[in-house]
């Protein structure tokens, strides 16, 4: 036992002294930081995009302008909400003397007012007077040392048609003339800075004749009979979606008016909305509403499955590698003149388990730390995620499944390492193993959609997949008997695998030359020698 302990200590010390180990430890917090800042980075690095509208009959121009402005206001509201939530002085009470000057305000209420960007909230924000009024409203509630609020950049800016292009020349001619700009060969200007023309919207003068109505003959319209959206960037569809919706809203409004309805009434009707609330029957009565945290709880296990898979295989590969190292330079002979194969195997499993546990505990600490510290722009998500991670029982499940999964795969890898002389041989033997191992990663995204379905339940009972699939299902409260049953089966599988791997290891570790054939492996297993 002392020898196994010494072997374990050596394995641990050797592995925590490698760069790979520290990189691995830094990985999770790094990924989280990247995840949280990627969106912001993407937004701040995307330049304002210029587009032109050619609409000689002036049918949709105003509607498009309004839609783009609305898009911008939404960004402003979002940025403002984040700014306010970060810098608000919480729990502040306005002195009674000032109550007359400023209406009594509750910071939490104000926070809530700006915490959502749904259409109704946006409507309220814009109607109340937009940013200027909102700023005034929160004036006394922001920490004195807070930096001033910076408005987000406009995502899309409508620019004038380049000089020399006749908007009335017809869609085909205008499109032809705009080609050099759309291809980036010529630049337009935003605030005096040259920039590419991102898109061009060309509305044919006779578009009113091509509106499709019920009862008409269905046919595919010619480009000349449609509003044309020209853009070289096919991936960024925000502007196209927005413009398409604005045009259609405008058209329907016009149709209502044409049928004799009151324009103001139509406007009002278009702004109505029916709230739809998501509820979960599993939650306590009165609190069934699905929150952000609930959605995160549904999906957080996917992240854990990925971490589980990565950590188990990263760590089990260490076992494979150092077994082959000891075998290929015959260190194992010296070792076996000092310790039994069983002690050696147990010590290695223990030492590398300690490496793995250190790594995942560091990950968890890093994750919780990052989320706790990140009260910034994504504060809401960070806080909810932290809540989910620490209170949902996912963490103990993760640690438990890591240990069992590691013992299962670790002993398999040790046995594999013991019969190979070089890393290359091991890689050849690993290929079929990899094919089997990749399955939980493939099913990882499907299982949360039907966590107690047939696929999930069947896979849960296959011990090599149990840790991953059960982790995957953890948030969906699988039946307790399934949790107990699969865990018992997994424990039994771990015990059997350890025992068989021990037999292969004891024989294989001293063998040189060709890796054994399957028949030989079978003999080792049966004879135990």
């Amino acid at each position, binding site marked *: 036992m002392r020898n196994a302990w*010494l072997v374990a200590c050596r394995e641990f010390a050797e592995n925590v*002294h490698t760069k790979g180990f520290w990189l691995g430890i830094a990985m999770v917090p790094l990924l989280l930081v990247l995840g949280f800042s990627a969106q912001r980075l993407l937004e701040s690095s995307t330049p304002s995009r210029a587009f032109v509208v050619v609409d000689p009959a002036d049918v949709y121009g105003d509607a498009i302008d309004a839609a783009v402005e609305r898009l911008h206001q939404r960004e402003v509201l979002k940025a403002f909400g984040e700014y306010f939530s970060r810098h608000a002085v919480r729990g502040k009470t306005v002195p009674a003397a000032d109550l007359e000057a400023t209406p009594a305000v509750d910071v939490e209420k104000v926070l809530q007012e700006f915490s959502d960007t749904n259409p109704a909230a946006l409507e309220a924000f814009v109607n109340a007077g937009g940013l200027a009024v909102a700023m005034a409203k929160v004036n006394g509630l922001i920490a004195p040392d807070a930096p001033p609020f910076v408005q987000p950049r406009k995502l899309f800016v409508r620019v004038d048609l380049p000089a020399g292009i006749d908007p009335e020349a017809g869609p085909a001619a205008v499109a032809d003339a705009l080609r050099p700009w759309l291809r980036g060969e010529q630049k337009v200007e935003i605030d005096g800075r040259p920039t590419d023309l991102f898109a061009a919207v060309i509305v044919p003068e006779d578009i009113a004749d091509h509106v499709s109505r019920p009862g008409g003959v269905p046919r595919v319209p010619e480009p000349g009979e449609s509003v044309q959206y020209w853009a070289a960037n096919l991936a960024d569809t925000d502007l196209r979606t927005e413009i398409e919706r604005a045009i259609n809203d405008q058209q329907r409004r016009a149709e209502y008016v044409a049928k004799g309805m009151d324009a103001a009434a139509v406007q009002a009707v278009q702004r109505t909305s029916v709230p739809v609330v998501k509820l979960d029957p599993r939650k306590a009565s009165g609190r069934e509403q699905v929150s952000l945290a609930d959605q995160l709880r549904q999906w957080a296990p996917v992240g854990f499955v990925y971490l589980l898979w990565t950590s188990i295989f990263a760590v089990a590969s260490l076992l494979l590698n150092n077994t082959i190292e000891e075998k290929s330079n015959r260190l194992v002979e*010296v070792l076996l*003149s*000092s310790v039994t194969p069983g002690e050696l195997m147990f010590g290695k499993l223990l030492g590398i388990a300690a490496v793995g546990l250190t790594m995942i505990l560091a990950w968890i600490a890093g994750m919780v730390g990052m989320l706790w510290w990140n009260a910034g722009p994504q504060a809401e998500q960070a806080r909810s995620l932290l809540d989910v991670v620490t209170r949902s029982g996912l963490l103990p499940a993760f640690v438990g499944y890591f240990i069992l999964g590691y013992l299962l795969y670790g002993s398999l890898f040790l046995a594999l390492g013991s019969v190979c002389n070089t890393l290359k041989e091991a890689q050849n033997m690993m290929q079929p193993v990899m094919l089997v191992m990749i399955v939980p990663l493939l099913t990882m995204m499907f299982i949360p959609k039907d966590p107690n379905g047939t696929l999930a339940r069947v896979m849960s009972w296959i011990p090599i997949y149990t840790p991953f699939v059960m982790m995957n299902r953890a948030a969906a409260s699988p039946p307790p008997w399934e949790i107990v049953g699969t865990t018992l089966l997994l424990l039994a599988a771990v015990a059997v695998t350890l025992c068989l791997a021990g037999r292969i290891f004891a024989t294989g570790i001293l063998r040189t030359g060709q890796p054994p054939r399957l028949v030989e492996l079978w003999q080792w297993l049966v004879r135990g020698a």
Partner: protein
Amino acid sequence: MSQSSQPVLVLDGLKKSFGAFTAVHDVSLSVPRGSVYGFLGPNGAGKTTTIRMALSIYQPTAGRVTVLGQPSALLVRDRIGYLPEEKGLYKKMRACDIIAYFASLKGMPSAAARKRALELLDKYGLGEFATRKCEALSKGMGQKVQVLASIAHHPEFVILDEPFSGLDPVNQQVLEDLIEDLKREGTTIVFSTHIMEHAERLCDRLVLIARGRAVFDGTVAEARRTIPRRIVIRTPVDPGRLRGMPGVTGLTALGGDRHEVTLADDGDADAILAACFRDGIPLVGFDRSEPTLRDVFLRLVGAEQAAEEVA
């Protein structure tokens, strides 16, 4: 039998087969306590297999091993030191750590093991490399580190498999000194080699293994006696009349002016020299060098191979 006179290692009818191939046939020997015992033999003779069986790394197909009075080396592994034939170290470990690690696996307390590691490295000229990683050491230095690792725990019985291979003459001498030191401390040493000069200088007893069989087991002097003593004389005349002298068992012309005189065990080389002067045999050269282990080796191994070929 008292503890001190009991042999350290007894092999009795040891045999090892790998499938259809038999690497070791019926090897029996006994290593006395405190002796330096050589395992000699050509490459592939079965030396390493025999050593692995002695250490219970391999289970013999037949026969019995007794090490330090026990039926298996595993029972007394803390009292044994072993240097395997193929040398290797953990590349990322420091020299002092690796010695301390192997010593602690043999039951030494960690602090004592570490102290001992540093002492040994200092003593055998590797003090400045103590904290170097093994991947930064030269092959010879690495090998020395490994030898030190095998003796750090003060074993009473040390088995060194090909300890000299790959060392330069200076380091071979360091290793010979080390073996002498161990012997002075009373350690029993078995080492295998195919370089006869080392065996000649170091061994009290030796076994010669060829094709998996022990073809000779005894002291170095006994080994020499297995081939007749001989004198090579160089003379321009026919030394035929030496033939009738007492103690002379044969006279062979080797070509040119060289003639070989073979002597019986009690034959006296000085008497031959005197006879040459007396009988007026003019001598150009008189070479009375003893047969070397190399001669013994070539003769015994050659005979074994010849026998094998006939069979």
